[in-house]
């Protein structure tokens, strides 16, 4: 049986933990609101751009730009977006598990077996992939809570150059897509070469009348690298919203658990106290009886 003092000390320390997790929950909640807002604001842009891109590549033809070139895939560049910090529940481990499963599936399915190298954004993904034995070609960390488009453009330029130089034949990106505060879904998606998405027949028929200013090549050579940057930016924002949401939830359940533990320990404390008092009473009573006898 634990002594009263030990139980009291444990209650005290758990109360401190609850205070800390509660504060972290509050901080995450306010960051979460901003992060969710910024991904919701960025989505219309990313969607419009992808729509425009699909129509333009269909109208201009696919051989017009090297970023549309499909080559036999021998080397894959994998951009893995995770968080820098932990305390986000199972967010990162889910993302990493999905990626490793994707890699296994990809390697089994094709001949000759492609090589995979990772470009990691976020410390947690780098650590996990390194442990899994996947070579890390480049690493970016510290994008912070408000990743700017300019920072992401640098990463986009790196992978675009690598793709053009033939270092990679395909670029895929993995991140945790934000669905709601409670639901984040790990996603693996190809971003290069750019796939002109399927268009319905009516739209395709009217596409030849597109005007390009100044020329199809000039528009595509700006639009395509930009689209890659926007894709990556979106992934980073999605992941950021997921991170803050997951952290808020993780901290909330930690706070709840701490309070439950405090309740349990308080019960133990009271029972122990009760038992001590009862024992003392019996000692006094039997002592008195012995004297009286």
């Amino acid at each position, binding site marked *: 049986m634990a002594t009263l003092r030990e139980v009291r000390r444990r209650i005290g320390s758990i109360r401190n933990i609850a205070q800390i997790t509660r504060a972290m929950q509050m901080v995450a909640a306010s960051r979460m609101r901003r992060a969710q807002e910024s991904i919701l604001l960025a989505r219309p*842009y990313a969607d419009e751009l992808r729509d425009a891109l699909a129509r333009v590549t269909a109208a201009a033809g696919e051989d017009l730009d090297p970023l549309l070139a499909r080559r036999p895939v021998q080397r894959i560049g994998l951009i893995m977006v995770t968080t820098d910090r932990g305390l986000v529940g199972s967010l990162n481990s889910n993302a990493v598990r999905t990626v490793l499963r994707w890699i296994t599936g990809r390697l089994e399915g094709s001949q000759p077996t492609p090589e995979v190298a990772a470009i990691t954004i976020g410390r947690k993904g780098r650590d996990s992939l390194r442990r899994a034995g996947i070579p890390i070609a480049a690493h970016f960390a510290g994008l912070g809570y408000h990743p700017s488009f300019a920072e992401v453009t640098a990463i986009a330029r790196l992978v675009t150059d690598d793709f053009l130089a033939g270092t990679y034949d395909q670029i895929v990106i993995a991140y945790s897509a934000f669905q709601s505060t409670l639901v984040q879904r790990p996603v693996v998606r190809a971003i290069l070469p750019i796939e002109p998405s399927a268009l319905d027949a009516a739209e395709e028929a009217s596409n030849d009348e597109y005007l390009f200013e*100044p020329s199809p090549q000039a528009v595509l050579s700006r639009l395509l690298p930009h689209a890659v940057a926007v894709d990556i930016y979106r992934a980073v924002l999605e992941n950021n919203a997921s991170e803050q949401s997951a952290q808020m939830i993780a901290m909330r359940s930690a706070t709840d658990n701490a309070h439950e533990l405090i309740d349990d320990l308080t019960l133990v404390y009271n029972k122990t106290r009760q038992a001590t008092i009862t024992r003392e009473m019996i000692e006094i009573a039997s002592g008195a009886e012995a004297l009286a006898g």
Partner: protein
Amino acid sequence: MPFQLEIVSPERRAFTGPVDLVVVPAIDGELGILPNHARLISALGTGELRIKSAQGELALLISGGFIEVRADKVVVMADLAEHSDEIDEAKAVEARRRAEADVDAVHEPIDLARARAALQTALMRERIAVRRRNRG
């Protein structure tokens, strides 16, 4: 017969609504879009985007990106989009000074290109602020 215009930037949706005319700073000169314009896609430069609609006139600073004229609507996808009434003239002047200092300070060609682009945006921002003040 107004048409639907949407202006989006990576940070937000800056404008959406029916308009009668939009003038955008395309990469090689200004481009005016009236209703029933042919389908078009063009790269954008840095400058003032002007909108005329039933609600009056509106100006935005935009930089980079694209305009797409579709059958059903016109979409401006800009790297940067700021409403003219969000621009604070004093801050704009300050930002332009900083951008000028940057252009003088850097030597790497890629940094210089970036600094020049920033300066151009800052100059345009200041000009829009001044013009708005003069208009009243």
